[in-house]
């Protein structure tokens, strides 16, 4: 399986009469995009704004961040199983816009009501910029307000698809252009003797990711090629704690996959990815889940594995069981574990090598902003969204991202 990313570097985005990219500037036909998104009868109001790094602007109520993608060649289509048929991707060529994202904002998603929603903030200037990877990109903010009377499933689906459609719409404008940069991904043959390394993804939430459009919770763990992940097979469904959120942008640029590809053929042999079905709710299920994950890594011939803890609190149990079982099979492991105030309550001696993408409870001061998009007041606290804020890092979008996309860690102080 050979995948090419055709990358277009975008320096700026402005509204214009036609959606097109020319010498690094993406012009967007605002009404064209809004009427394109209005194809979903469940979306009532749709607003589109553009924010730039350095603006004294704050985005609140952010749900997801999507990298604009359009598949131009090869089997399958953009965001398979959601925007197109559930056909396998990971081959051929896909165009992507670098430096610009789509950020959906919306009121509280049904699924998180009433207790589990938390604020999700992206600051385009001030100290907040350092914390969220999306303080430094041009963001096309798509405000979505579904019509009333929808079932929870319909409500949340319209939010999900709105963001993905906007991202495809922007990238589609480059369909006939030649990309400046082409990156190729292929698990080609390597010099023998390099350690075989697999990537295992453990999760347990009920709404973590959609794999080819289907929720992963009822799925038995499965193998997936890293190219499928880089080509849109896995999309974020989780709108929980903002800092830990593996937004779709991060799913599409999965850091573990990219890191392992960088090392593939140099000092290791990247043999594949094992994805957890998640949703295990009893000791028996978690034990079965972990056995399955470690067995699949073994079937790949892995001698070592990176294990990421994609979501969930109780799945820390699945994570540690998987680590323990891998090590017992002689598969050495490193875990990527986000930290919450609570220290991990279940630990096994085998979990001796952990990378921490940061701690969510540290409090950060954010200065007052001139402009705010996505809402007037913060969830739960009701504070004025534009004002000076003292908030836990947990509110800053993808700052302590669980997959380790951001250059943050936590240290004893």
């Amino acid at each position, binding site marked *: 399986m050979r995948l090419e990313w055709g990358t277009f570097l975008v320096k700026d985005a402005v509204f214009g009469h036609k959606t097109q990219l020319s010498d690094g500037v993406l012009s967007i036909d605002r009404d064209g995009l809004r009427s394109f998104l209005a194809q*979903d*009868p*469940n979306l009532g109001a749709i607003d589109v704004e553009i924010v730039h790094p350095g603006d004294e602007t704050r985005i609140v109520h952010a749900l997801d961040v999507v990298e604009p993608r359009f598949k131009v060649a090869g089997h399958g289509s953009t965001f398979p*199983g*959601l925007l197109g048929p559930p056909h396998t991707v990971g081959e051929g060529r896909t165009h992507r816009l670098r430096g610009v994202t789509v950020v959906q904002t919306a009121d509280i998603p049904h699924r998180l009501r009433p207790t589990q929603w938390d604020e999700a903030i992206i600051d385009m200037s001030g100290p907040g910029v350092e914390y969220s990877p999306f303080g430094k990109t041009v963001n096309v903010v798509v405000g979505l307000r579904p019509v009333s009377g929808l*079932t929870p*499933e*319909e409500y949340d*689906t*319209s939010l999900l*698809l709105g963001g993905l459609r906007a991202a495809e719409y922007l990238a589609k404008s480059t369909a006939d252009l030649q990309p400046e940069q082409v990156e190729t991904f292929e698990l080609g043959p390597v010099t023998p003797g390099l350690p075989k390394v697999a990537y295992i993804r453990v999760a347990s939430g009920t709404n973590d990711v959609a794999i080819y*459009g289907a929720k992963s919770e009822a799925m038995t763990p499965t193998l997936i090629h890293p190219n499928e992940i880089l080509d849109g097979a896995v999309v974020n469904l989780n709108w929980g704690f903002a800092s830990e959120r593996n937004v779709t942008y991060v799913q599409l640029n999965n850091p573990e996959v990219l890191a392992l590809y960088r090392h593939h053929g140099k000092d290791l042999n990247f043999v594949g990815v094992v994805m957890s079905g998640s949703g295990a709710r009893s000791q028996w299920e978690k034990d079965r889940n972990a056995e399955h994950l470690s067995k699949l890594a073994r079937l790949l011939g892995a001698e070592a594995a990176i294990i990421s803890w994609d979501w969930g609190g109780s799945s820390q149990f699945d994570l540690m069981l998987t680590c323990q079982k891998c090590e017992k099979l002689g598969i050495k492991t490193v875990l990527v574990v986000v930290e919450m105030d609570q220290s991990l309550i279940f630990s096994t001696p085998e979990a001796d090598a952990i990378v921490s993408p940061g701690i969510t409870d540290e409090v950060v001061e954010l200065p007052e902003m001139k402009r705010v998009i996505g809402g007037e007041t913060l969830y739960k606290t009701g504070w004025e969204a534009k004002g000076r804020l003292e908030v836990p890092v947990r509110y800053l979008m993808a700052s302590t991202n669980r997959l380790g996309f951001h250059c943050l860690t936590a240290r004893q102080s």
Partner: protein
Amino acid sequence: MERAGIPGVLITALPDLAQRVGANRIVAGVRMPHPVGDPSLPLEKERALRRRIVETALKALQTEVGEPTVFIVAKSGP
């Protein structure tokens, strides 16, 4: 049925299969145990969906087709 000259439309949850077997006018239904309904929806929404499916079926009956054709029901969401 069609060989006897009567125009027919088949509402089925497996339109691909119907197409391969040669049914000429096919409407994509919901799921096998309930091709013309969706129990996951509240009653009046399911009734509205059923109406949209049957309307599509009648539209198919009034449409000339050269070979097996699947008519998709306009539904919101995937």
